[in-house]
């Protein structure tokens, strides 16, 4: 069937089989391969994308047809051109990634986490990211990265220019 999905601000009209999972639709129909797939049981979270700006969803546990008429944000949509999103910058600064496979999911889950809770404690961050697996970093630096991003975004919220500079 035909669906209309807005991904990273661009509207796409595509024909999909009902059984096509959103993750495969993003990767194969739209060529947005930043969203990864790591398990079959909704356990690993490397496929997390943001739906309608407010909900982190595991795109391997949702059919593409369910995204019809919705807005999806993927890791490719985080940066504003050359300017990295504070989360991306923080993951880089804090060495919050190694093989990079879990990173898009971590970024998108953190994006919603910080949206709902702008200055989370370490405990809240560890809880909020517990639907995403990482096999490389031991999580220490991912937590630090989210803390850095929270600080940057907080500063930006106080004085909008801060982030751009």
């Amino acid at each position, binding site marked *: 069937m035909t669906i209309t999905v807005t991904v990273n601000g661009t509207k796409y009209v595509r024909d999909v089989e009902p*059984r096509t999972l959103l993750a495969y639709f993003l990767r194969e129909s739209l060529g947005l391969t930043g969203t990864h797939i790591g398990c079959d049981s909704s356990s690993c979270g490397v496929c*997390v994308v943001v739906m309608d700006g407010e909900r982190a969803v*595991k795109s391997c*546990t949702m059919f593409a047809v369910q995204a019809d008429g919705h807005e999806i944000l993927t890791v490719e949509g985080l940066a504003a051109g050359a300017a990295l999103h504070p989360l991306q910058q923080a993951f880089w600064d804090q060495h919050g990634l190694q093989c990079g496979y879990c990173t898009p999911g971590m970024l998108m889950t953190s994006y919603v*986490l910080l949206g709902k809770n702008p200055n989370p404690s370490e405990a809240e961050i560890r*809880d909020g990211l517990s639907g995403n697996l990482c096999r490389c970093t031991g999580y220490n630096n991912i937590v630090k990265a989210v803390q850095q991003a929270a600080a940057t975004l907080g500063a930006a919220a106080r004085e909008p220019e801060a982030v751009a500079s």
Partner: protein
Amino acid sequence: MFPAAFDYHRAGSVDEAIALLKQYGGDARILAGGQSLIPAMRYRLARPAVLIDINPVSDLGYIRDSDGMLVLGALARDAELERTPKLHDRYPLLADVSAVVADPVVRQMGTVVGSLCHNDPAGDWAVAALASRAQVVVRGAAGTRTVAIDDFLVDSFTTAVADGEMALEAHFPAPPGRNAGSYQKIERKVGDFATASAAAWASLAADGTFAEVGIAIGAAGPTAKRVVAAETLLRGKKPTRELIRAAADEAAKAADPSADGRGSVAYKKAMAGVLVGRALDGTCKRLGIEV
């Protein structure tokens, strides 16, 4: 893994959903949060011929605290409950559950009613619903009926929802008077099903005795189990350490789990007791009672 092919229908309203259910009967499944159904479909354990997606129904995500009960629409997501602090004081037990179902991302899609309908013996919401004396409103072509949770949970993965019907909403009565509750769960890791779980709430009479009590355990049989013996034991008595221990023992006795990778029968029975004890401790703590 990849789901087998199916026909997909979008319901714009509950009536449309019911009409589609009438048309396809047992071949059709309702798609709400999909967090249990879709993984089962990926393993091709579940292969419904027809999926009826109710997500487009605009007014099913409601969470209403009215007429002394919390009313959750079929699309009320776990995370919504988790993020509604004003409910946490009135429904501490449900607040606890909403923060430990599956994992934080799954909870943003998963629904309370969907979890009740899936009726996994190790699921969380059925336990809380039993303890809370919840009711489920079931709608079919023939009309609407309200089913007490005890009758709703028929057997493992089987509920009172018949072919052609759908669960419309869940009712959680607000515990009367001065009350509190607590949910306790042992899981091997975040996102796993419970090894054991326990839900408890209690309301206190003026004399400080338990006026009303609700206790249920999970992963302790074909479905979540109400521990009537423990409830009877506690009702009308002042909370003491001994009393709570005795109630916990009743829970351990009542538990009838099956062994799996999560634990042996002996361990799961023992944990049912430990967790009921901790749920009651948590309840008393929230009531400001020293035991």
